């Protein structure tokens, strides 16, 4: 089966994984059956160091809610991965598209928080 071409941008301290200081952008190939979680595994990104993760402009994770890893990657997909320490105030994301898993989690833990780090969440 043909691989998918994926573009990845990593922001903040995790950029070190690809040799960057605060920013790293790369192209890579993934199996056509791969999901977002597979990409994170392949890049060996420590999940406890991520905050916001986007897949094709859809918000998948926020700080403290790292839960959307079963979204399928498409050929030409772009993934944006932010390290911890980033901010995105609620008023500036109110209404943005989110993955189904993140939408459900936010309904459970509170939509309006600025960060979820330290929040006691159930697995």
């Amino acid at each position, binding site marked *: 089966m043909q691989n998918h071409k994926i573009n990845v*941008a990593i922001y903040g301290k995790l950029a070190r994984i690809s040799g960057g200081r605060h920013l790293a952008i790369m192209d890579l190939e993934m199996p056509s059956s791969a999901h977002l979680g597979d990409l994170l595994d392949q890049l060996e990104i420590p999940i406890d160091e991520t905050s916001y993760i*986007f897949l094709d402009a859809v918000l998948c994770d926020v700080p403290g809610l790292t839960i959307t890893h079963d979204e399928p990657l498409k050929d030409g997909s772009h993934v944006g991965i932010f390290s911890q320490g*980033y901010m995105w105030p609620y008023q*500036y994301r*109110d*209404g*943005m*598209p989110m993955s189904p898993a993140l939408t459900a989690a936010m309904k459970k833990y509170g939509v309006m*928080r600025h960060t979820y780090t330290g929040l006691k969440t159930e697995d």
Partner: protein
Amino acid sequence: MTKQILRINMSDLSAKYTPVPKKWARWAGRGLTSAIIVDEVDPTCHPLGPNNKLVIAPGWVSGSPAAPSSGRTSFGGKSPLTGGIKEANSGGLSSQKIAKLGLAAIILEGMPKDGKWYSIFINKEGVQFEDASDLMGKGMYEIDTLMWEKYPNKPAVIGIGPVGEMKLSNAGISVNDPENEPGRYAGRGGLGAVMGARGVKVMVVDDKGGPGVEIANKELFTEGRKKLTAAIGEHDLTKKDGGLWNFGTNVLMNIINEAGGLPTRNFSAGQFEGAAKISGEAVVENIEARGGVGVKHHACHPGCIIQCSSIYPHEDGTPFVSVIEYETSWALGANCGIDDIEYIAHATRECNDIGLDTIEAGNTIAIAMDAGYIEFGDKEGALKTFDEIRNGTPLGRVLGQGVEATAKAFGVYRVPTVKGQSMPAYEPRAIKGIGVTYATTAMGADHTSGYTIAPEIAGVGGKVDPLTDTDKASLSLTFQAATAFIDSSGYCLFIAFPILDIAEGWAGMAESIAGVTGLDITGDDVIDIGKEVLKMERLFNEAAGFTSADDRLPEFMRNEELPPHNVKWTMADEDLDQVYAWVHE
């Protein structure tokens, strides 16, 4: 000591101190500027005429010892850009120095009968007026330097550049920072033109020997400020090594771009391919590589512990500009299709010098680009517009009036404004919640008018679903009210982050205000007090002729899909009208 109102009348060059009247005694900052404007300014007056006033007010806690990040100064008047009431606030040195002189507010009114320009010096001895002829045409970098050479004690310098002298609607008011740089602006709404219309080029405030700020309940104040300080130091966004600390406000560039909400090329797309090059990450990489005077964590006023500002150096390490905010980098960069951070630094310095609001300036250039006068991405062409404005050419005077005037002059349909003020760096078709605030706030499209605070504290926890359109409207009111309260406090709006997520921080904010003022304010009062401010402002605008038809986003946003999400603005007008329906109930 009772706080005073300093009334400066430029018609007869007089200055009068009076105790704060009872009707204004509760207010400070934005609450006070709006209360005075409502009481003393005819809503139908011409903003540049003799009946408008400029009101300058520090917040409740400004100037009090060790209140963290509490150096915001509110400037108020009738806006020449919107035709409605305006409050724009700034960091810098002015808030604490005005407060320490025992002043609750400075009211600048009248117009010089001789048509001359003046500088004003204020200290504990009183007010001095001087002929400012030798300062005319000068930019704010030179003005700030000259004022510190002339006056001792490193005073606050509040001034206008050539744009304010020309009384153009995109004129901001500059306040110097601790390094005496003019990067702190009460930028939005053209209040620099209101100051210029009073015939005042610059006001210098020296607080040495002033009475200081009296603390009504030291124990309560200390307890409150400690709680707030701890919350700021603990929260992910505001602590050291947090988002604002690491990259400043420009930490948002890549996030908003990844989300598809970054207005690009005059609001024709939601992603910019060059965003990373003009982001906070790029700025910090350059600061680290260049060294010299570059600073990653910089306080725009004494006592700020968030330190989201920075000092950006030239390649040789010499001073270039402070500060490249997110909205600045977006407006002058992404919205003009320009991905060169050196150009943005240069353009920001131009704005700081001649006295332009960077958001309106960038959006105005984008309009000229949309019209084909300049190509998107043409940074040399963009820089020439600043020369046109500085020199007061006919084209420059149009551009200096902002987006709506420029769009009319160039015949552009895609005009991203509400109530005459152009939108900041968050696309409302993608980020619907901010669109509600843009549409309904009395200030015109403004990203600082609706900061989130805790839903439980605001009384909306469990009552609304933020994921629906209808409830976005009711949430916006709560956010706007909380913001009006914080804008009255003197605290930086960024304390909204820790007080949303940390209950002790919320309580600490209210306790510190109650401790300084002696007012019976608790966290439970925040929304109601904020709504009082909003009501004053709303009724002023209604008296000025505004109706619900002004609470709308521009037509093109209902007609044009925004990539990459390919969404239009779909919020129902009826939902928008609910935001302020309570004012007449």
